[in-house]
């Protein structure tokens, strides 16, 4: 029995107990705080299962933002649930039990926990982890990154960039695409994608030939390379979801503004009378900001990235708003600015895609960012994209805090 499993079994019991407590406790305060604890425990579970980026996000989102959101809601609503005679809703319990039973039935044929032979570990993912997807067969790019590998090695270009460009354009035409349509890659079920299989798949599909010097999503943190390169398109919409949340909150909660008025005059509360708190926060906020920037820019190398870093940056501003009051926060970071920055972040992300399209590549094909050396495009693109995510997330989180804290319009 591995350590992972041992720690896992204890942690998950704690998690389950907390979950039940969250649902059953009557005070909404307590529920909000317990859900914060729940997130912390959950983050421990993720760390234990080596899912560092998820743990990072869960800590920042679940432990921080969600709790602040809940508290911000309690400001405007009640603090206790109404008392009821019947505590147990038998109908709901029955439906729940049936759904649970169905799910348990479904687990019976699953690959066991940690089975290295499960299809998900063998079919498509190995190449993504190796970051050899679509590389020309036989090229030296096929080798895994060397020991002691750092992001900017191996960037010399075997093909002249014009050739590479012409090659990509030739294959990107619709004719090639139409011929391809209808082809399916079947018959690999259960088969281990060893080196040969991978070579075959990568080799036969010339349309995707990434030049051998191409970076091919190579960053030490494979989670980031999947997030920002292979599945970069999903991540763009993830950012759009965040933006949507911000826009929705503005729609639903922002006080009416008369034209030209930036922020209605309002009362506010601050904690500046607490000297220790005030001094400590003044000390901390620069540190948090630097740390947030570090996390955004560090995402390709270690755990972290735009989302996590953005949340950390936002918490610095939220802390400032908590201590010094929201008018002060607005002085530092006007509402208009956060609104615009939230848009600009997503625009930066999608702008990278549009730019590559204008250069003649596919949407978000980072190799076209810098045709002179396609290999450089990958790290550049990923960095830009992460910053886009970071800006949007940071400003939207601040907007959400602002809107939740704002008093009702009279």
């Amino acid at each position, binding site marked *: 029995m591995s350590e992972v499993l041992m720690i896992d079994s204890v942690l998950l019991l704690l998690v389950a107990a907390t979950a039940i407590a969250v649902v059953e406790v009557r005070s909404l305060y307590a529920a909000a705080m317990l859900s914060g604890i729940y997130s912390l425990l959950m983050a421990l579970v993720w760390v234990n299962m080596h899912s560092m980026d998820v743990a990072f996000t869960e800590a920042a989102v679940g432990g921080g933002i969600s709790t602040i959101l809940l508290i911000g809601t309690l400001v405007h609503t009640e603090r206790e649930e109404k008392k009821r005679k019947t505590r147990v809703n038998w109908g709901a319990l029955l439906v729940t039990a049936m759904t649970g039973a*169905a*799910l348990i*039935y*479904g*687990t*019976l*044929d*699953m690959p066991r926990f940690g089975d290295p032979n499960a*299809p*998900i570990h063998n*079919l*498509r*993912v190995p*190449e*993504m982890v190796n970051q050899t*997807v*679509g590389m020309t067969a036989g090229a030296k790019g096929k080798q895994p990154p060397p020991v002691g590998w750092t992001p900017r090695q191996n960037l010399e270009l075997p093909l002249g960039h014009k050739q590479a460009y012409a090659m990509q354009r030739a294959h990107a035409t*619709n004719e090639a*695409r*139409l011929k391809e349509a*209808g082809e*399916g*890659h*079947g018959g*690999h079920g*259960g088969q281990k994608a060893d080196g040969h299989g991978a070579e075959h798949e990568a080799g036969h599909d010339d349309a*995707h030939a990434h030049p051998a010097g191409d970076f091919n999503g190579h960053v030490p943190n494979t989670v980031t390379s999947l997030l920002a390169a*292979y*599945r*970069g*398109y*999903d991540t763009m*919409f993830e950012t*759009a*979801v965040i933006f*949507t*949340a911000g*826009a*929705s909150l*503005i*729609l*639903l909660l*922002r006080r009416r503004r*008369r*034209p030209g008025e930036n922020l209605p005059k309002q009362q506010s509360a601050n904690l500046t009378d607490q000297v220790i708190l005030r001094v400590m926060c003044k000390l901390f906020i620069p540190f948090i900001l630097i740390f947030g920037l570090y996390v955004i820019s560090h995402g390709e190398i270690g755990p972290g990235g735009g989302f996590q870093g953005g949340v950390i940056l936002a918490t610095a501003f939220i802390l400032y708003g908590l201590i010094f009051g929201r008018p002060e926060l607005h002085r530092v970071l006007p509402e208009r600015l956060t*609104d*615009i920055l939230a*848009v600009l972040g*997503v*625009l930066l992300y*999608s702008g990278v*895609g549009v730019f590559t*399209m*204008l*250069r*003649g590549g*596919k*949407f*978000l094909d*980072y190799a076209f960012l810098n045709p002179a050396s396609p290999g450089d495009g990958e790290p550049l693109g990923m960095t830009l994209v992460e910053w886009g995510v970071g800006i949007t997330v940071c400003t939207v989180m601040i907007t959400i805090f602002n809107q939740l804290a704002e008093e009702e319009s009279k």
Partner: protein
Amino acid sequence: MIPFNELITDNLPALVVVLPLLGGLLATLVGRFAWLWSTIITGSVFLLTYTLFTAVQAGPGMRYEFGNWPYLWGIEYRIDLLNAFILLVVSGIAFIATIYAKLSVEDEIPADRHNFFYSVWLLAITGLLGITITGDAFNVYVLLEISSLTIYALIAMGKDRDPRALTASLRYLILGSVGASFILLGIGYLLMVTGTLNMADMHAQLMAMPEATQNRTILVAFAFLLVGLSLKMALFPLHTWLPKAYTYAPSAVTAMVAATATKVGVYMAFRFLFTIFGYKFTFVDMPSYHILIICAAVGIIITGLTAIRQTNAKKLLAYSSVGQIGYIVAGFALANPQGVAGSLVHIFNHAAMKGGMFMALGAVAYRVGGTNMKDLRGLGKRMPLTAGCITAGALGLIGFPMTAGFISKWYLVQGALAGGSWLLAFTILFGSLLAVIYSWKMIEAMYFREPEGKTAEATEAPYMLVLPTMALIGLSIYFGINAEFTAGTALKAAAALLPGGVQ
């Protein structure tokens, strides 16, 4: 830089989704011109989807791989006739609804947030188009959440007119999120057993598995996807979020959402049931036929009966929408060419008819202030064009010859008979009878009652409201008379989905 036309032809599938996304983002920055901007964007998106549709009609289909990553590893868009058709419907209706939105939004939404309203509006369209075009299972989930989140917010914007919009929106939010979570769970189960997220690849992996129908994980994945999708498309027992959400949303939102959101839900069901699981798994090995047909048939009858009792015209139409979803689901559950074609045709026809009717009711609300039966009284004299649109739409719901509704009912009944299901054919006809009753309630109020209250002073709605309404209703009549385009496309798309067709 590459020439403009090459940019368009090479990246057509991507642009269909990226353009409204960019438009939605920039809409917050254009200030007072948000409506104009949105109209331009949705108009260009419509042109793009039309180009896409003609390209797909001519050839076998189109694919687009994002970031030039091979589709097995990256995310791809895969367009065949089915989703090109739905894309055309969604973008067309979104365009018309955006034109319509101008006055109704000015009427119902505070002026200081119009730009955010249109931003969210365009993002909702982005989500709906994105679901329809994508070939990646997880991408479906992400875009589903974009479209849902935006639609929750848009519905809640009806709060200034009637606070019940808020409770309706929250109820939709909770049920919708549960549904989306079920879909996410189903995708997870499938990912676990197939190891891939690409829909076509998933299908290939499932086919390669000799004992797929015995694998309990796949069975549960199927069940949860079915439940989640039913929630999203408001199939009968899981439709409870729909009536109130449609009733209390702002008029423009109701028109757009009613015409597109559930339709895209149905499209997702098509994709998951036919493309991922395949005809054989879904309809031969699983009892989906019986489950879906029973839900649909019971839904048609019960919602028809409920609609008759409504006193609010918007709510009446909302219940009728649930019944119409029943027709659509019954059609594809038959899994024969006529049935599936009827289902597809009805997606378009119902979108046009219902969208038009909700727009007409929005015009009524604009002039009269409400959509109760009482407000409709005597409308035939005061607002003849609007009343005419409602009547024409109602005839379509009934399935009157020379309307689009007739065409789809015709195919559906044919499909039911071909499938040997007399009872279903009877139910479809009985549903029409119920539609006659509830439509008559409206028609009677409009033409055979004297106007009273505010209706008495009402005049015809402004052309910015009436013209889009007439456009949609006109479409539904045109395609009732000349169904070559819709029915032809639907038959071709249906043939491709069913066994023997090109996958």
